[in-house]
């Protein structure tokens, strides 16, 4: 009997990922039926990946960064600058954006890992804003308030064929989905590793972790750095989505949006932030066409979720399924 139970529960374990990947793979086909459009799906993937990167740190290491938009923005500018000034290559743009944001995050992380809780969040906001003002003020390089433009995502050369991802929205969606899958797989892989378990240990009980002989600061720094790389990677994809890099992408309110997606979706779960991003982006898309004050409604929704489902939407669904 217990054997049967175990089989059932391990079967159940695969249901969610299979459902999620199927839905993502078929999105260009079912989304139009619900009144969506492919580019919306692409945005969800990129912002979802960003929220998952924030949550890599928040949900699995227990460290709240409120300045992660900085790495997202640096990724976007890095990618955009390659395309605009250096070489017409999409992969090179992504690589450069990811490295730029990730390395900047690694350097800053080394300075701040000793801070904890609110102090850590405050320091990340402050440093994030430094990057925002650089992007905003340094017009000759970044385009200032107008953002960085023009640049365009370039066709992909796959050896046997060349794929136009600029005009073909579906092809671009699948390109972004492939990039998303790569990052999600890397995150899942890390979280299942011994290092990933030390992240959980730090989240669960820092004192116990320290007295097990885990050098907490080093491990938080590595987790922070990895999260910054994922974030910058999402940012460079975002530059490709918009063909544009926006200084507001580095603003702390953008960081807040990512944290909101993660918390709303469920920060203890791997897929929660993606769900949060879906709710956020779709809500924004529909409500902003009705009223310019759409943020009031998303804020209201956020408050409701936090009050009634403290573990986020996915957390609440899971609890119901477990009962």
């Amino acid at each position, binding site marked *: 009997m217990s054997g049967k139970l175990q089989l059932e529960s391990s079967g159940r374990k695969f249901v969610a990922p299979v459902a999620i990947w199927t839905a993502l793979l078929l999105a260009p086909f079912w989304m139009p039926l619900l009144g969506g459009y492919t580019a919306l799906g692409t945005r969800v993937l990129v912002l979802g990946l960003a929220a998952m990167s924030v949550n890599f740190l928040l949900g699995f290491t227990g460290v709240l960064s409120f300045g992660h938009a900085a790495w997202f923005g640096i990724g976007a500018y890095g990618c955009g600058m390659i395309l605009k000034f250096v070489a017409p290559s999409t992969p090179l743009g992504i690589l450069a954006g990811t490295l730029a944001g990730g390395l900047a995050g690694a350097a800053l992380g080394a300075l701040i890992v000793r801070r904890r809780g609110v102090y850590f969040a405050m320091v990340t906001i402050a440093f994030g804003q430094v990057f925002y003002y650089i992007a905003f003020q340094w017009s000759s390089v970044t385009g200032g308030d107008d953002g960085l433009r023009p640049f365009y995502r370039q066709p992909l050369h796959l050896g046997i064929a060349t794929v136009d991802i600029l005009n073909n929205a579906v092809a671009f969606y699948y390109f972004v989905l492939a990039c998303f899958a790569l990052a999600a797989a890397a995150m899942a892989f890390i979280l299942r590793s*011994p290092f990933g378990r030390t992240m959980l240990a730090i989240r669960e009980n820092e004192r116990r972790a320290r*007295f097990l*002989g885990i050098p907490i600061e080093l491990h938080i720094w590595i987790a922070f750095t990895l999260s910054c790389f994922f974030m910058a990677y999402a940012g460079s994809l975002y530059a490709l989505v918009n063909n544009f890099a926006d200084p507001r992408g580095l603003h702390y309110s953008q960081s807040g949006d990512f944290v909101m997606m993660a918390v709303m979706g469920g920060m203890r779960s791997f897929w929660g932030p993606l769900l949060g991003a879906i709710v956020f982006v779709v809500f924004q898309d529909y409500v902003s066409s009705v009223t310019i004050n759409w943020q009031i409604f998303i804020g209201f929704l956020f408050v409701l979720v936090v009050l009634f489902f403290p573990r986020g939407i996915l957390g609440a669904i899971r609890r119901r399924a477990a009962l």
Partner: protein
Amino acid sequence: MSLLQVKNVSKHFGSLVAVNNISMTVEHGELRAIIGPNGAGKTTFFNLITGFYRPNTGRIIFDGQDVTHLLPARRVWCGMARTFQVTEVFPELTVWENLRIAVEVASGLRLRAWLSQTDDDKIRVRIQELIEMGGLASKADRQVGELSHGDQRATEIMMALALKPRLLLLDEPTAGMGDQETYEITQLIRQLHKDSKLTIVLIEHDMRVVFHLADRIMVLDQGKFLAEGTPAEIAANKAVQTAYLGQAA
């Protein structure tokens, strides 16, 4: 050479002198109990040994090495492991996962992104050993936060043992436990001491436990050293009776 030598350590917090010029020497294989009324400075003394606090004066020598200025994690690497007065575990993880983290860290695998099958097998065997030693076999898949106080404490002790320490420091291992749980934890500590020849320093309020287990006892009172000796010597000590037993009664 002695395993642990604490030399004239003091710690004050503002004007409060929590630990005042205390020395202690613990030999290999010894089980030492530290007792004293509330506020005697026992836990602070423990925190100085394990690196939770740095002493204002004095030195701590562990196995011939001066560890006075080492961070807690480094002292763990030297072979010190501890538990806390209020149990410190990973509450939302299972017993198995709690021990898995401890075993992996102890095996030097904490930075690894990938485990070979051989490593994974070794780790599983070790976790299973610890789970059985702690009497937790039926609870391996339960979240530690849901378990009874005694089982949480057993998990914590097993996590400390996973580190293969040469010195185990237990801060009130039976605090807040019923008779049965106290008995089980006492048996476990006795077994670790007698069978595994582990050197143990423990703080304890329950005198039955102390006199049952300890080779030597050190008594602190109001941050100061009061007495040290075998259980029989301590029981006969007049100063201890007035300061400690008098107050407790």
